[in-house]
């Protein structure tokens, strides 16, 4: 039997060359069509994303007037500046703290929403996502007003409890706290929505089976909910890490990096150095320092997204 198959295969292959048949023609046509359909996308990515990204590496090696190649001296200059190391530290503290709290609050809120009767869930979900919908520049203005040194509504309220007044944006610790708070406020609803979608996709039978096996609510979360949501938690967290790390709007509006540059992130400092102080090469240099961290996160996301795709 097997011999026959091989024989047949060889004969067929020998004669197979003659066909230049319809699908191959359409394939030729098809890839031409596909090329034109994707051309605008490719041009956009090449010209407005890839080219500027590579161009910024070139920029980073020029002097301030952009007339002369200075090699890595912009980088070595940065390494010697204390502000730079403060920005590195603050960016990391900011991103990690904010993402952890966003993830935690998102998870907790998603659970509560999932707990209540399905009828009311839509309403609550709709209400709780509002911070994510408002343009961050607009909502940060509201926070700026809430944190106002003389008219802070928070301090007004706290004064009834004998606390404060707190220098929300005037003191290094509180300013750092405030920018993280606003970022958590803005980003936690996104986590909530992602987790809620993931929670809904866990089949009820699993919980029922676990209940029959005698699991309590904590064991159910630990052994069923978290493993089932593992992937979506990973993707959401990594994605949020990128966005938070590269954040600009909140810090720019709330503190502009102050007091004394202690709340600067890479993005806001790059803006200050590159645009406001017109040292474009140095600004490019600062923003390039985001690349390694973004790249690592991106690689992990890509891996998880592909895995998720394969599971589905």
């Amino acid at each position, binding site marked *: 039997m097997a011999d026959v198959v091989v024989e047949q295969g060889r004969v067929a292959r020998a004669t197979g060359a003659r066909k230049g048949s319809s699908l191959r023609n359409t394939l030729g046509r098809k890839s031409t069509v596909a090329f034109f359909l*994707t051309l605008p996308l*490719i041009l956009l990515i090449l010209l407005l994303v890839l080219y500027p990204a590579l161009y910024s590496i070139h920029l980073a090696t020029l002097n301030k007037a952009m007339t002369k190649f200075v090699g890595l001296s912009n980088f070595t200059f940065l390494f010697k500046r204390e502000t730079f190391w403060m920005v590195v530290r603050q960016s990391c503290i900011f991103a990690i703290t904010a993402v952890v709290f966003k993830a935690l609050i998102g998870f907790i809120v998603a659970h509560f929403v999932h707990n209540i009767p399905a009828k009311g869930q839509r309403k609550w979900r709709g209400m709780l996502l509002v911070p994510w919908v*408002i343009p961050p520049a*607009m909502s940060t203005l509201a926070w700026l007003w809430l944190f106002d040194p003389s*008219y802070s509504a928070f301090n007004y309220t706290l004064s009834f409890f004998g606390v404060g007044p707190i220098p929300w944006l005037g003191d290094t610790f509180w300013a750092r706290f405030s920018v993280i708070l606003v970022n958590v406020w803005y980003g936690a609803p996104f986590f909530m929505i992602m987790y809620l979608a993931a929670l809904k996709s866990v089949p009820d039978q699993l919980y029922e089976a676990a209940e029959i096996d005698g699991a309590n609510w904590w064991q159910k979360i630990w052994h069923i909910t978290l493993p089932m949501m593992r992937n979506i938690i990973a993707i959401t967290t990594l994605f949020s890490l990128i*966005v938070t790390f590269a954040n600009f709007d909140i810090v720019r509006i709330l503190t502009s990096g102050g007091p004394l540059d202690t709340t600067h992130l890479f*993005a806001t400092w790059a*803006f200050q150095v590159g645009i406001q102080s017109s040292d*474009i090469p140095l600004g490019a240099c600062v*923003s390039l320092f985001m690349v390694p961290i973004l790249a690592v996160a991106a690689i992990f996301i890509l891996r998880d997204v592909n895995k998720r795709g394969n599971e589905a």
Partner: protein
Amino acid sequence: MSTLAIDKAGPSRKVKYGSMSRDRAWALRWSYFFLVLFAIFFLTPPIYMLITSLKSSAEISAATNPWWVFHPTLSNYVELLSSNQFLRFFWNSSVISIIVVIVTMMISIPAAFALARMKFWGSATLATGVFLTYLIPDSLLFIPLFKVLGVVQDLTGITLLNRWYVLVFIYPTLTVPFCTWIMIGYFASIPKELDEAALIDGASWLQTLTRIFIPVALPGLIAATIFAFTVSWAQFLYPLVFTTSVDQLVLPVGITTTLIKGDVFNWGQIMTGALLGAAPPLVIYAFLMDYYIAGLTAGATKG
């Protein structure tokens, strides 16, 4: 009443049942309690915007209870909505966002169709590239883009910097990758037999796209449109860098730069402006919440 009756029928089981439902009732009460707490946390800033926007400058500077409006007035709204400058911001934002939505769809839909349905050389790489592009933040590109625009401006003589229309070219870098990505997902979920049926019915690729794919994937299209619009509307960094003249500004930049004049903060107007600036996305969200959320969650799944 009925529980009592059951209680008599078989005591041991009832106790169990009763404790279960009592647990559940308590869990529910706690859920609502915390949900209210979080809702207060999440909704305080927008509500505070509204409260402040209804106050006169005099009431604000009098430092009365900030959480209450004693003499509500619409003067802030009247003033802003009759200010040419503010209307100019609003107009710029609207025009840019609408054009960006159209441009995004014209680029994303054909590309997503090709990537979802026509396996061609490099299609998998391109799809991955699209996703990676989506992960590149604006704060990485604004400096080189600023410089590139300057160079192009010098070379061609076309004014690009400090012109609102340059944003129409730049914003698609933020909207197109994500929209393409989620449209790939929506298109890929359409059964293969549907295009085969269309093929046998005599439809060309283009007809398959316009008459089958776009109508069938309409929910995805709406989600992508909402995303493109809200991203364009909310974008802050690019317009802050690329535009400076008052008549070229978009809403977020306009409000933060012109209403905050030195140390004189007119908070009633700032909050009114912020609220009006937040209104279009909020209104879209209120009416198309399900599409909005579908678009958000679609990003995490592979197309």
